[in-house]
């Protein structure tokens, strides 16, 4: 069965600092890859996605992610974090096929200090 690993449970960064959140997946083929963000008391908002093509994908709110096939990774980055980015971030994969379903990682909680 496929799995998604987010090794960092909690990360704290200063406002204005750069950010990288790690995500590794275990699956034979390249699945569809997603990053979602969940603010406190809110639902899941899609930040960005990778299906094929250019391995560096841009998303909303200034986020980007890079797919590295050799490392089975899809790390999320942001050059300069804002206080409003404090939230929980989930990496998810969809193996495709006729019935889509997302498998989520355990999430990384981002705290931003001023």
């Amino acid at each position: 069965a496929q799995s998604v690993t987010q090794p960092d449970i909690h990360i704290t960064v200063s406002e204005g600092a750069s950010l990288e959140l790690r995500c590794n997946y275990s699956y034979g083929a390249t699945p569809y890859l997603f990053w979602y963000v969940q603010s406190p008391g809110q639902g899941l908002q899609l930040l960005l996605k990778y299906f094929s093509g250019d391995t560096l994908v841009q998303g909303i709110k200034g986020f980007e992610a890079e797919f590295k096939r050799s490392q089975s990774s899809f790390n999320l980055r942001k050059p300069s974090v804002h206080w409003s980015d404090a939230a929980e971030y989930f990496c998810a994969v969809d193996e495709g096929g006729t019935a889509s379903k997302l498998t989520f990682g355990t999430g990384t909680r981002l705290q931003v200090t001023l």
Partner: protein
Amino acid sequence: EPEVTQTPSHQVTQMGQEVILRCVPISNHLYFYWYRQILGQKVEFLVSFYNNEISEKSEIFDDQFSVERPDGSNFTLKIRSTKLEDSAMYFCASSEKERGPPEQYFGPGTRLTVT
């Protein structure tokens, strides 16, 4: 921008009672999903639904659970006899999937508390 809506935002029920969680997916979407997130844990897939039937379901989705699209807009999740361990945030999602891989758009969730 169209969005997925869910009602109620919070439901409290007693163990053994039936609950129905409601969702209105994005209007032109064809695929519908339910996920749950137990407090402090990751989001887990429950079921996917297309063309008025279940496409796939997880081990969690046992006989106590059912889904229905009673009309052209609503998508419901019913838990027949709730257990304490059903307490969780339940998310509805929908996707279009006319072409290419699907993007699932999530609602704000319903927090279910079973006492």
